[in-house]
């Protein structure tokens, strides 16, 4: 590309065919990836180490190039024109003696930085090429062809903190404080309740007694309460029979169920 450029920079008169060739060059310019790319390729054409490059010479080269390109194509990319303006400024800085009043960076500093940028870009291009020249996976070396599925076994562990625990308990207890939950169970007699009541009474009953007489007071009228109390009392009776404390009998199906204290048996 740099050769083409040099050839192009010698164009002076513009015949139609020259113009076409020059246009082609402009297309080529667009092919450069930005002014730095163009500068780098110009710099390389100086055939010196990028660190020793003459930035002044490079700036002149670039400006001449842009000038020429602009004659042909005014709509040159803004990037190139900005670079041209900056290089023109740099060139003046490099040529004029430094102004002691000026606090900005010196021409030499600016030029050094541009040289650094060019060298860095050049270096990155070199290593990019080296990188791509490496052996690559699925091209030069290969991964396993037959792979085995790894079954994922998910194990879930649960955590809770002491605070969670205490808050949960507080929540429950607090709920109890305010919720008259007894009402919910108002019409339900638990077996434990029935048992407690029966244990107290059983000692006095020496003869067969209908278990319905063991229903607690106030549980016989409401059908709902009576049902629950009867069931609980019956279950409690069975329990007491199992413990060997009472005998239990029923004459026939649906006949009253009777219990009586088991004779001559002390409670342990």
């Amino acid at each position: 590309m740099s050769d083409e450029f040099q050839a192009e920079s010698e164009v002076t008169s513009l015949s139609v065919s020259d113009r076409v060739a020059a246009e082609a060059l402009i297309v080529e310019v667009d092919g450069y990836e930005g002014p730095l790319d163009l500068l780098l390729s110009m710099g390389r054409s100086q055939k010196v180490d990028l660190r020793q490059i003459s930035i002044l010479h490079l700036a002149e080269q670039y400006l001449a190039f842009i000038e020429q390109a602009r004659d042909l194509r005014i709509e040159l990319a803004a990037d190139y024109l900005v670079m041209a303006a900056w290089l023109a400024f740099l060139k003046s800085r490099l040529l004029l003696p430094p102004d002691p009043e000026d606090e900005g960076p010196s021409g030499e500093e600016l030029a050094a930085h541009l040289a650094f940028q060019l060298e860095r870009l050049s270096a990155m291009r070199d290593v990019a090429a080296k990188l791509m020249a490496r052996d690559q996976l699925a091209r030069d070396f290969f991964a396993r062809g037959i792979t085995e599925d790894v079954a994922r076994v998910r194990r879930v562990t649960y955590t809770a903190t002491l605070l969670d625990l205490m808050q949960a308990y507080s929540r429950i207890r607090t709920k109890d404080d305010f919720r008259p939950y007894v009402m919910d169970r108002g019409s339900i007699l638990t077996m434990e309740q029935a048992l407690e009541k029966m244990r107290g009474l059983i000692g006095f009953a020496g003869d067969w007694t209908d278990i319905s007489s063991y229903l607690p007071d106030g549980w016989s009228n409401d059908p709902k309460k009576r049902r629950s109390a009867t069931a609980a009392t019956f279950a409690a009776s069975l329990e007491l029979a199992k413990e060997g404390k009472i005998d239990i009998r029923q004459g026939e199906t649906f006949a009253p169920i009777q219990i009586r204290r088991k004779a001559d048996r002390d409670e342990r």
Partner: protein
Amino acid sequence: MSDDREESLFEAPPMAEQERMVEAILFATADPVSIKELMGRMPHGCEPAEALVHLRKRYEGRGVAVVKVGDAWAIRTAPDLGFLMQKETVETRKLSRAAIETLAIVAYHQPVTRAEIEEIRGVSVSRGTIDQLIELEWIRFGRRKLTPGRPVTFVVTPGFLDHFGLETARDLPGIKELRSAGLLDNRPPPGEPLEEDEDEDDGQAPLFEDEA
């Protein structure tokens, strides 16, 4: 590389080299490879059948083995190492509200029956919740209660104490302490004097904050 191939058109590579080739091909190919295909892919003059014998021997007792699959050959995991082909991932989740409440009740009331837990919670306790706590080894069965039906009871385990940093379940703060720690609801129970409310406000200093 292409030079090697050129050469090999005239002279087959040494057997050790052929073995390497077979090894690489079997490793990288997505399907078992037949002898015929090996011959097609290896330089001219190679004898993959012989190379396979060597290779097979080399892998004897290793973590993978050279095996014959139909007419073709492949490298496969040694059968005794199949258990390695699973990955266990551990996920940590917060305990559900039902579970933490049940656990709290067991901790505070142990030994406690399921009926008692339900009584305290005011809702039924699902079997899954109990099972989960048992599986976590935070609760276990205690002695049966000497009440009708001899229901089983639940108690907390040493693992529970360990997890929650307690020496004994008795170290759990009582209701009063919970209240003064601001862990209990501030609404005064109906009919109770309001001064308790003030007490609670005083006691808001959260006793357990640094443990959270």
